[in-house]
Structures are given as structure tokens and as C-alpha cells.
């Protein structure tokens, strides 16, 4: 018996939803097996995860804290990966967005009294920081044909070093130098009140706090969707992602497009960085065990892949994975070693990849042999004499 795969002639629309959902289910099943193997009861663990992620009082607010940056890095990945530009640098681009955003917040926050102005400036600064950092691999890819995977990724490490340096290893503008706490442990300067981003509270579950960043993420998703499906820019980007020879043929200025998409992707990640500072930390977090350990950038890739690079699905999946991350943090302890969340994310991505195959191809099972009875069954081929 053999199984072969053949291209589907047409793809029913429901397949693009059913398959990711099934991949998710499959992932939890597989992970359940892994948990059993290490002596942990999967069902209890999953219930705990779900509880801590979405049900308990305050859980949704906590989940949004994780989901917001994931939405940005997920959208950043979706924007680029769709075009076959593998921007792995969302992590570093987010750090740079945080640095620029925090600088804008600190500087303008002490000189202006208009919250709207300062926050808008922080968002713009975040975009600039992220886009600039992403332009490095962008330029290298567009003009020097250097693989963007490695360059964007290596720059993550550099960005992390810069971030740590600004707070831990220098007396930079971002560092808090006065006050007792500051001399004990390096921290970033607190943002003035005017630069701190507002939140909205829904009266449910004890009060769900929705940060400004979440709204911005939704707006970005809408813009991204419109950009790719309704504009000339998106048309050219899609052609380029499909076939770069066809893109050249259709008159696309390929190098400029590559640079533009990388900058776009980086800019989105940069807003995520600004949101980290404005929404949550209210200061630049340079601690190597802080922001840098949360790996929002890499998880964003998981989010985007599971969402099949669709901007709206990305938001949903970000919420889901955010809940997972949050639950992981809450439950961390002897029964829940760190790293389980990464394992789960990895398995989810594996299943999503495997499921992807079923969307494009159909499996066919072949019975062995094709002949009727009068030919000797399964004859051995004649060896050459």
C-alpha cells in the first residue's frame, strides 16, 4: 500500500479554516502525550492553562498584556512572510522601537502637556526605530542579495546587546540615575504621566483592562489587510512573493519593494516596542532577564504561521498564544517547568505546517499492484545480465 500526494485542483474555502483548527487540536493531543511521558496529567494541565489564561479573575487582562506585543510581532511577520521575505528580526526591531519610543516619551513628555501628541510621537518613533533596524537586512537583501534570515536574526542579538547596554552598562539618557533604587539595580527612567498610554476597562470578570496598544494593533491589522488586498503596493508585493521573475516582468521595482516591505514589517514590530514602554513597563526595560527573555518576536512567527498570514486571524491567534504565555507565567512552578510553553508553541507550529500540506494536496492511497490475476503477483524485475 502506498500513499501519494497530488495537487488539489481547487481549494474549498472552508479548508483554510478547518485545517488550522485541526492542527491546533492535534498539537494539544501530541503535547498531551509528551506530558504524560514526563508524568504530568495533560487534562488537568490544559484546564489549568485555560483557566489561568482566560477564565480566572484578571486573567484576560493579563492575557492582553502578552497578546498585544504578540499581535504586533505577528502582524510584522505576516506582512513580510507573505511575500517570502523571512524577517526573523521582529525581536530586535521591537527592542529598537522600544528605545526610540521611550526616548520620544521621555523627551517630549517633559516638554508637552498634550498626551495625545506625546503618545502619537511615541508611536511614530517606534515605527521609525523598528523600520530603520529592519532596513539593514532589507538593504542587504535588496542590494547585496544577502539572505535576510541570517542578517535579521543576528541583528536581534545586537539589538539585545544595545538594549542591555543602555540600561546596565552605561549612563545613558534612558537610565534612571537618581534615587535609591537606581543605585541598587539599574532601571530605566520612568515615563512622565503624560506619556503613559491610556487603558479602557470593561466591567466583566472583575474588570478587563484593554491597553491602547490593543486598539492600535487592530487598526494596523485593518490597514495591512487593505494594503495587501486593495492597493497597488499590495498587488506588487503579492506578485513579488509569488515569483520574482514575474514581478520584474510586470515592472515591479524589485529592490525598492523588498526594502519597503522589510521596513513596513519592522515598523509594525517597532510599534510593539513602543507599546511595551507606553502601555506596560512605562520605562525602558533593559534587563537581560526581562523583555529579552519573553521572546515575543519569535513567538510572533508562530502566531503568523498559524494564522496563515491573514491579518485578522493573526489578532485572534495572538490572543490565543498570549493566553498560553500568560498561563505559563502564572503557573510556573514545580509542576510547570519553564519551557513548556515553548514546547507547546513548537508543537502547534509543527502541526500547522503538517496541516498546510493537506490544504494544497490531497492524499491518495494506492493498492499494491495494478494488474489482474493472470500476471504473476508482484514479480521481481529482471536483473540485467
Amino acid at each position, binding site marked *: 500500500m502506498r500513499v501519494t500526494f497530488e495537487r488539489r*485542483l481547487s481549494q474549498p474555502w472552508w479548508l483554510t479554516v478547518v485545517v488550522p483548527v485541526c492542527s491546533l487540536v492535534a498539537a494539544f493531543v501530541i503535547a498531551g502525550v509528551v506530558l504524560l511521558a514526563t508524568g504530568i496529567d495533560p487534562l488537568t494541565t490544559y484546564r489549568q492553562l485555560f483557566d489561568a489564561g482566560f477564565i480566572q479573575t484578571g486573567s484576560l487582562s493579563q492575557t492582553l498584556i502578552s497578546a498585544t506585543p504578540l499581535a504586533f510581532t505577528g502582524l510584522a511577520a505576516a506582512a513580510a512572510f507573505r511575500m517570502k521575505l523571512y524577517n526573523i528580526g521582529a525581536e530586535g526591531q521591537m527592542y529598537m522601537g522600544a528605545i526610540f519610543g521611550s526616548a520620544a516619551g521621555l523627551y517630549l513628555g517633559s516638554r508637552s502637556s498634550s498626551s495625545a501628541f506625546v503618545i502619537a510621537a511615541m508611536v511614530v518613533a517606534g515605527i521609525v526605530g523598528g523600520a530603520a533596524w529592519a532596513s539593514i537586512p532589507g538593504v542587504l537583501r535588496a542590494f547585496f542579495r544577502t539572505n535576510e534570515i541570517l542578517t535579521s536574526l543576528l541583528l536581534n542579538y545586537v539589538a539585545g546587546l544595545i538594549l542591555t547596554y543602555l540600561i546596565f552598562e552605561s549612563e545613558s539618557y534612558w537610565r534612571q540615575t537618581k534615587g535609591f533604587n537606581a543605585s541598587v539595580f539599574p532601571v530605566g527612567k520612568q515615563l512622565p504621566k503624560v506619556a503613559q498610554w491610556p487603558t479602557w476597562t470593561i466591567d466583566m470578570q472583575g474588570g478587563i483592562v484593554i491597553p491602547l496598544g490593543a486598539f492600535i494593533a487592530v487598526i494596523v491589522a485593518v490597514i495591512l489587510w487593505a494594503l495587501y488586498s*486593495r492597493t497597488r503596493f499590495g498587488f506588487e508585493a503579492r506578485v513579488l512573493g*509569488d515569483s520574482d521573475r514575474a514581478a520584474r*516582468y510586470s515592472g515591479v521595482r524589485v529592490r525598492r519593494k523588498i526594502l519597503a516591505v522589510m521596513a513596513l514589517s519592522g515598523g509594525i514590530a517597532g510599534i510593539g516596542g513602543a507599546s511595551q514602554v507606553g502601555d506596560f513597563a512605562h520605562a525602558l526595560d533593559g534587563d537581560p532577564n526581562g523583555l529579552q527573555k519573553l521572546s515575543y518576536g519569535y513567538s510572533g512567527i508562530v502566531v503568523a504561521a498559524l494564522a496563515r498570514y491573514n491579518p485578522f486571524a493573526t489578532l485572534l491567534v495572538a490572543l490565543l498564544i498570549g493566553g498560553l504565555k500568560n498561563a505559563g507565567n502564572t503557573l510556573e512552578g514545580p509542576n510547570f517547568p519553564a519551557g513548556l510553553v515553548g514546547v507547546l508553541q513548537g508543537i502547534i507550529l509543527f502541526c500547522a505546517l503538517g496541516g498546510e500540506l493537506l490544504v494544497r494536496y490531497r492524499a491518495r492511497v494506492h493498492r499494491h499492484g*495494478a494488474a489482474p490475476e493472470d*500476471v504473476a503477483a508482484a*514479480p521481481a*524485475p529482471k536483473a*540485467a545480465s
Partner: protein
Amino acid sequence: MDAPAVSMRGVTKRFPGVVANDSVDFEAAPGEVHALLGENGAGKTTLSHILTGLYRPDEGQIALYGEPVEFNSPREAIDAGVGMVHQHFRLVSRFTVAENLVLGDRRGAGRNFRIDPGAIATQVRELGERYSLAVDPRARIWQLSVGEQQRVEILKALYQEARILILDEPTAVLTPDEADTLFVTVRKMAEEGRTVIFISHKLHEVMAVSDRVTVLRAGKALATVRTADATPESLAELMVGREIVVVTREGHVNPESAPVLEVEDLWADGDRGTVAVKGVSLTLRSGEIAAVAGVAGNGQRELAEAIAGLRPCAKGVVRVKGKAVHNGDARAAFQAGIGYVPEDRLGTGLSPTLSIAMNLSLKSFRRESLGPFLRLHAMRDKAADAIRTFGIKASGPEQETDELSGGNLQKVVISREFSAHPNVLIAASPTRGLDVAAVEQVHSYLLDAAEEGAGVLLISEDLDEILALNDRVLVMYEGTLTEADDRSSVAEIGLRMAGETPS
């Protein structure tokens, strides 16, 4: 009576959406040259892939020399003595000739774990001399001409001691003289008792070299006849089922009519940094069809790309209706009215996973949009029109182009280029791989384009097509372009294709 060398009975092979081979019966005798004739898409290549173990039949039996066989992999077919020379060579470009021959081999010098380059080289030279297929064993494939590469493919089969050789459209890449040499080689192999299965869609070749002919049409084997008893007309009728419309072009062009394309001293580099186009100059007038003959790899593709702005010119100018076109700028080229139907339909001419509607607007979407926004409704309507007008078989304007068949793909490309009413239309191998009906349609569009005043540059490796459609014949050889004095002389064109100038 001896058992036939090859016996295929009731062989059926299905792919999604098409039955490539439908209960085919085929037999070939030892020492025979047996032609498999059929138009493109009739199922010849599929049948041969089954025989070589690349595909598995869904139904049917195969026997070699009377013994039933079932191949689970190409390895088993090779061990059984079946060798194939593919239309698209299966050679590793970066390896040497010797390395390609030895690949996967398990006998002779090949049985060793360690490779001995010297011994292999000697064997290659011997084989080359015996069959007039001389080639340098140490040369790397990418350094060889296409004709030489084909020799390597044949040597590969002989080196593996194939008793049954399948040649798939071998003359497509040869000059007329090289083709004649090939026929000599084929005869020699048959005289030694090997069976040669010669796949082709060209009637005169089949008549020239084969002992028997089996005609395939739409996946079915229609008839097997002795070549001596057949005529080109009888074969043609079997092959297509109706009379083929033969196009002939009278070849009168008004020398006073305005030139639409002027290429002056064009030099362009190839992909590997070598010079591919060397000082080509040509003038194309309105309503004229200039056919460019030449074996693949002599710079035709690079020339077409250079004119269409897809390749920068190191030197030289391209002018459309007197105005120079910005060098290496595809957008400027098509805005100036240069249409290009590339050889590589699905990879260059179309964006594979995008819809037909988007592909039809692949170049025009900028003009058709409202500011930065696309007018998707308008694009869809335009596509629905084109599908109707050009008879494109598709489920609708939203269908992905990579789901279409070869003929329909080409229709999408041609309908797009044609509807743009270009000043210059460059068509590179526009009918390759298409069935007869599609070929006729494409030819009629080219003629219509010329009728509307475009200058048509037809680049083709098919001499029949060149001869049928031209007002002038140009020949490309190693980057230089010459013009034939007698546009209907196969002999002269053949000489020029081989780099000779007639006395």
C-alpha cells in the same frame, strides 16, 4: 517468433483532471527503431516515463523480452536495461560529464566505493568514438552546448548498457545537420540489436528514421503501422483526426512602412557573466513578422529579455517608433508598446498563484487603478471578457493560474499581450508543448497582430513554424544575428544555425 523487446498492454495512467494514457497497447521489437508519434499532450512522454520507472501505471501490464516486469523505481528500470534521453535533460549542471555518467551506477568501475576519475574518462572516450558522440569527459555540463549535453544524455544510457533506448523529442535542440548525425547514431544502435523508441511530433523525422510508427492521440493508441506503408498525410490524419491547417505567409512587406523597432548594436550579458548577445542590430517594420531561428542557448532568450527591458544592455540602444527605450527597464519597455510572450509562461509571464483576473492586469494595473487603490471589479469584468473572447478554459476569473493547462496558460498570456495592442510583439517559443488546436490559435493571433500593424519578432526552435510564419528569417548563433538570403531554404538556415555562412 522472438518475444518483443517491449510489450505494454492496457496501460492506463491518470493525473488529477486528466487521463494521460488510456488503455494503451504498445509493442517494439529488438533491433527496431519504433516511433511514438502524437501531438503535444497525447501522452507520449507519460508512457515513456512509465517504462522508465518514473511513474507507476494505474492499470496494465508491462513485459520486457517476454518477462513481465513491474518497476517500483527508476533504479529497477535501469537495471532491466531501459535507458531514456529526456527532453529536459536530467543532468547535474555543476558536475563533469564523467560524474554524470557514473551517477547511481552500480556496475563496472561504478561498483567501487571510491571513484576513479581516470578509468571513467577512458570509458567515456571509447564510447564517444564508437557512436560518434565525442565529448570531453572532464568538461562541466554548464560549459557544454545544448547539442553536446544531449550527447551526454545518450552516452549515459549507453554507459548503463541500455538495451532499450527511449529518445524524447531529441531533435528539438539540434541543427538540421546535428539531427542527421543523430539519425546515424540511432541506426547504429538499432543495428546492434538495441531497441530505440523515438518520440516525436514531427512527421518528416518519423518518416526518415523509423521502421514502425505507433500513433497516440488524446491518451489512446490509435494504430501501429510500418513506416514504409505510411505517408505524411495518413500519419497526420491519425495524429490529429482532421486536416491540419497549414499556414503559409506570403512574405510581402512594404519596405516603406515605418519601422516600429530598431535595435542598434545591442550587447548583453548572460546569467553566468559571459556575453550572450554580441552586437545585434535589427529593424522591424510595422506589419512584419521576423522569425528568429536558432538552437536554444545561442542568446535568443537574452536578446528577447534585453529588448523587453528584463535584462540590462551593456551597450546599444532599443528604439520603438523612433524613441529610445530606457535601458533595462521593463516598465518603460511595455509602456513604450513592447509586448513579450516569454518562453517561461508560468514562471515569468504569469504569477502562478494569483488569479487569472490579476494576471490579465499584470502590467496594466497601474493604469487601471484609482490612485493607490486597485479597481478589482473592473479587473474581474475585463477578465471575464477575455475568457470568453479567447476561449480560455477556466472556472472563472478568480481561478489560480497554476491550475490551468499549458494551452490555456498560453492563451492567458497571449490575450493579455495582444489586447494591449502593442507596437512590437516578441513571442519566444509560443507554441512549445501545445496541442495542434492551440498551436493554430496562437499562430492566428500572431498573424492578427501583424495585421493590426505590430512588428512581430517570433523566436522559435521549431523550423516548421519559422518557415510557415515568416516575412524574413533571422538566425541567432552564439550571440550574433544574421539574416537568411533565401527565407525558404532549410539548407541555408541550417548552415547559419550551425555558425556557417553560405558561400
